[in-house]
């Protein structure tokens, strides 16, 4: 019995191939429309996320950036951007943890410790009234 379950899950895994992680799905659905699928940004309007000093330095701010959006001029890899980012609503703490883990892997060096939902709750508590 056990080997049947083992075999069938192995077959399932193989036949479904490399699947988009949940974090990647969230990114593609909620962030890629502006930051683009590969995080390269759109000209001078939407800043890139891929390999940016800004994301590197403000990684822990992600829960607040997502929850509150952003406004005001910022410098990303030496280029100035100044376009409001709307708050992205509807994320749970677990969603944000998944998204952060994906962003670290896909956009940065992937060297960070795995983010857990509990850590997201903690980071959210530190959000100022508005992210600027």
């Amino acid at each position, binding site marked *: 019995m056990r080997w049947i379950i083992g075999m069938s899950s192995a077959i399932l895994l193989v036949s479904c191939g490399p699947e988009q992680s949940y974090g990647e799905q969230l990114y593609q659905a909620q962030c890629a429309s*502006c930051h683009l699928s590969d995080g390269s940004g759109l000209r001078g*309007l939407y800043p890139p996320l891929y390999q940016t000093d800004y994301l590197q330095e403000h990684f822990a701010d992600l829960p607040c950036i997502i929850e509150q959006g952003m406004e005001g001029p910022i410098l990303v890899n030496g280029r100035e951007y100044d376009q409001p980012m709307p708050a992205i609503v509807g994320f749970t703490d677990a969603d944000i943890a998944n998204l952060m883990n994906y962003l670290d892997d896909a956009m940065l060096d992937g060297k960070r410790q795995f983010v857990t939902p509990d850590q997201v709750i903690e980071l959210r508590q530190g959000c100022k009234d508005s992210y600027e």
Partner: protein
Amino acid sequence: MHWPKLSSMYSKRTLSIVLLLILTSLIACKKEETGPLPYYGQTALEGTDTVYHQIIPFSLLDQDSTVVTNASLQGQIYVADFFFTSCPTICPVVKQNMIKIAEAISDNRLAFMAHSIDHRRDSIPRLLSYKQKLELDDRWHLLEVPEDELEELSASYLTAAYEDASAPGGFDHQGNLMLIDWDGHIRSYADGTDREQVDDFIKKIKRLLHEMDHRNE
């Protein structure tokens, strides 16, 4: 071993009929891809002439405070859409695809008319800064549409755009791209969020430019 000759298996006649059929279908397909584009919207008969649906007369201000009218676009065809600069959902994708079109076709006879539906927030300076941030060239007009003209104008483009507090960003609209010819007729449509439709739309624009070259023949 020797191969039977084709002519001994099928009569020459059948063979030539088959070849003829293949040839005609090839020509027919080719014609489909190079002939005039269809006309969208209601058509009417005036005497013996068919009158096609036209975009209503407009007079709008663009990002440089220049007045853009049907007449000022004479000698050009254009791609139109409805958007707003703070749109959180589909507009960024539609704008990416419009930029892709502009990159694919550098012809100066092609203009871009992006109508803002957010008359409150999208002031002229804001439209200008949006144009500069996106590094758009002079073929682009980012237009202010007065509140009371929006409904009639968007309807004339056969698309929907209206204020709706419950929609993301406060406006509800379709991410359609419309291709308008030198006489204000709608000649093609695409869902501006759909990459395949946009690629096909690019081909249609090239066909319309070709049609423009040959329209007085």
